[in-house]
């Protein structure tokens, strides 16, 4: 590749990234914040309204991304879109993964790093949305307790809890150690476990790189690769066993 071509690629990456970040900032402030504010005061079910707003906001982000990056394709399996009342566990490749899943599921909860709950406004949105802090001490403990107290009802009413059990992004695509939180919650709620595999979000937004990769052909996929319907009365539904079953699904 010539120096000029490299330069032009970089310029395109930078401009596209700026336009995407513009959506994040101004899209949020101009188009979505009025709805968040209205729902704060007038919604009968704030949590559900906030989750729906998060869903539409991130859906808008991916529509915008596909418009700006014509060679980007996003393929979501039909049987992924119809998942309800489940604990979803998923591999983790990029910061885009959580927002991609929010853009797929309108009624969603997830586990978020505790530090984000302390960010002004954003932390409030996370709390009202019913999201769970990854670790709860001090003030965050009441958020965790509230969220867990209503988790069974949330899942029974069709909501999905999605979790990245590795906790951190995989740099080389290999599967890391699992945290047991998702499996503990699945047991607590006696929920089905759906195993999703995300592909190539790290091609669009690579870990350690600030700019989106905008000129190559990228095909992001989200596939349902397994379902576990545990018999929670049997010994085979221990957290360790559930973790082992999910790992086997990923490795096969």
């Amino acid at each position, binding site marked *: 590749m010539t120096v000029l071509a490299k330069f032009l690629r970089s310029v395109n990456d930078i401009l596209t990234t700026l336009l995407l970040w513009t959506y994040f900032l101004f899209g949020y402030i101009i188009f979505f914040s009025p709805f968040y504010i209205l729902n704060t005061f007038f919604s009968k079910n704030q949590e559900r309204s906030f989750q729906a707003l998060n869903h539409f906001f991130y859906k808008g982000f991916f529509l915008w991304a596909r418009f700006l990056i014509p060679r980007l394709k996003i393929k979501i399996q039909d049987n992924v879109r119809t998942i309800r009342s489940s604990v979803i566990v998923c591999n983790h490749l990029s910061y885009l993964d959580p927002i991609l899943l929010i853009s797929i599921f309108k009624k969603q909860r997830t586990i978020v790093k505790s530090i984000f709950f302390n960010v002004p406004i954003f932390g409030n949105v996370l709390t009202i949305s019913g999201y*769970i*802090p990854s*670790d*709860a*001490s001090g003030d965050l*403990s*009441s958020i*965790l*307790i509230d969220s*867990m107290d209503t988790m069974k009802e949330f899942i029974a009413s069709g909501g999905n809890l999605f979790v990245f059990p590795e906790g951190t992004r995989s740099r080389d695509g290999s599967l890391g150690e699992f*945290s*047991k*939180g998702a499996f*503990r*919650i699945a*047991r*607590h709620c006696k929920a089905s476990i759906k195993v999703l595999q995300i592909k190539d979000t790290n091609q669009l937004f690579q870990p350690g790189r600030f700019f989106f990769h905008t000129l190559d052909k990228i095909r992001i996929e989200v596939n349902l690769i397994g379902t576990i319907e545990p018999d929670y009365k049997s010994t085979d539904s*221990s*957290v*360790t066993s559930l973790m082992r079953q999910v790992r086997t699904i990923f490795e096969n």
Partner: protein
Amino acid sequence: MERKEIEKHILRIFHDEFEIENPENDIDLREAYGFDSIDAIELLAEIEVFLGFELTLDEKKQAMEISTLGQIYDYVENLSNSRD
């Protein structure tokens, strides 16, 4: 409720629900077994079943600061006495 009864039941919960065998009384459960906040919530649900009443938010928040098995015994004993 007798302290011994509480200890026996809590140990059974640790065995059945958390796959932790006979933890020492003063060991930090998080460091030794990765016992985290979500585990603590699950334990509280089991304690509610054991005691036969629901805990208040303040009682639950208090539990989130607990780190050893000995503290759990004290906590459950206090709860039991508070409702007698």
